[in-house]
């Protein structure tokens, strides 16, 4: 029973996509994804996602640190807010960013229709992933390890570098993987603020959408398949990370 549900919802559609993408053979597939507009979209998506993910690694870990180790009034509220980009509909996220950083910006910052807007939207929607991935690990991290390091003479920075970070690495990498998957596939938040300008601010997902509107299914399917491969790669990486860490961390 579960099998039928799963097949109808996931298995069959994925198979159909693979079939559609490969319909014209490998050559046609290659041509579709290397067509100028498609290529530009893919490059933009991958490029910005990498940058976004790197920023998340740093700030996400920092946020997790502050939320776990620090105390200040309103911390609980801040902690709850971290999940907002996850709970908020993507179209609303786009609108929200537009209101502060768009044409009518009260602070005079207008990134609408620029590549920066793509980065901004992706940073917004991927905010929770690294934070939530690192938090529980940091929470559980044996403080006595750090105390031991201190008693052996290690300064605070060394302790962080040699004791804390290595233990956090699997969690950070997991968070990065999840962020990347989300960033690469993001759609709703980009629609309003980026202007969807081909070759300039059109992300892969938006390209796929417009191709579907134009009833050009092969083109849409080809680029979709690329995104599918990225998603599978991310899921594979996550499985490997969790297997590695369950072997080495106790």
């Amino acid at each position, binding site marked *: 029973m579960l099998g039928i549900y799963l097949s109808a919802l996931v298995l069959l559609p994925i198979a*159909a996509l693979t*079939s559609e993408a490969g319909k014209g053979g490998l050559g046609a597939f290659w041509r579709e994804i290397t067509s100028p507009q498609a290529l530009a979209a893919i490059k933009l998506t991958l490029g910005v996602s990498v940058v976004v993910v790197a920023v998340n690694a740093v700030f996400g870990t920092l*946020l997790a640190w*502050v939320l776990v180790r620090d105390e200040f009034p309103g911390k*609980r509220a801040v902690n709850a807010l971290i999940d907002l980009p996850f709970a908020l509909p993507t179209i609303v996220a786009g609108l929200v960013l537009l209101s502060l950083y768009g044409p009518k910006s009260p602070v005079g910052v207008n990134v609408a229709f620029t590549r920066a807007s793509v980065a901004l939207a992706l940073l917004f929607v991927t905010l929770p992933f690294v934070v939530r991935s690192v938090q529980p690990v940091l929470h559980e991290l044996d403080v006595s390890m750090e105390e031991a390091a201190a008693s052996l003479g290690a300064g605070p920075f060394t302790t962080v570098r040699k004791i804390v970070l290595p233990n956090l690495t699997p969690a950070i990498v997991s968070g990065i993987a999840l962020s990347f998957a989300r960033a690469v596939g993001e759609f709703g938040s980009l629609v309003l603020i980026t202007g969807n300008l081909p070759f300039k601010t059109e992300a892969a*997902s938006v390209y796929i959408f417009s191709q579907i509107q134009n009833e050009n299914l092969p083109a849409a399917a080809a680029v979709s398949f690329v995104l599918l491969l990225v998603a599978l790669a991310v*899921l594979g990486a996550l499985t490997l990370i969790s297997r590695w860490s369950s072997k080495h961390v106790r």
Partner: protein
Amino acid sequence: MSASAPHLQRPAVPLALARSGKETGRRAARARRLGLRSVALGYLAVLLIGPVAMIFYRTFEHGVGAVWTALMAPNAQHAFWLSLEIAAIAVPLNTVFGIGAALLLERGRFRGRAVLGLLIDLPFAISPVVVGLTLVLVYGKTGWLGGWLTENGIQVIFSVPGMVLATAVVSLPFVARETMPVLRELGTDSEQAAATLGAGPWQTFWRVTLPAIRWGVVYGVVLTTARALGEFGAVSIVSGRIEGQTQTLPLYVQDRFENFDSTGAYAAAVVLALLAFTTLVAMNLLTRRARAREAV
């Protein structure tokens, strides 16, 4: 320094700094902590809090009356109820599926568990537009099942059933993912005890397993509902976006914006944002509750 055992002293500040003078050490540590805190909170203010606050301001800039009128518009109403209706179907389906899948993955012994897990996680990792496309490829008129569906007069794509389907796909993983660790932690002991006490499999599930995992399930349901109500990309492709008929609230927001009705767009967006906040509150309460019950 005295030769007392280091493990008996628990310095509030790393010893290396303590040696250089307690006062400067503590001040430095405090400065560091404040610095980190400001950077972190600053990042949040710029990226998250600022924009969200802004949208509430923008919406109510012209008074509550205008917002109310916008929300009372027939298309807005229809979009709202349609979103709820779709969620009301998709969420229970995914809940039943999620619990079943979690039981299968945690309690079952069969090959291909990894594949099953992968299929369940896939909708989470994949772009919603891709989801929309794949559904069109299967259930659309020219899709794999298109012929059979048209023959039997069933329309999936460009109508509500398709939207329910799309919503169900993108919100598929949550109940399963949240229930699995709880099941794992529960262990099989109490289920075996129930068996020895004479309970059949259904009785054991209903009286022992389900109550024990309920907070995980509820948390998963909250996430599923949030995702279902807010879904945009997949539903956008699958719906045809016909005003008053196949527009969910998120689609309505886009529609209003593109028609330069910013009040209408912001009003609907605020409703969705409030729903999101409710989700946040629920998530927060549930995590704390689950942790409190963790004793024993």
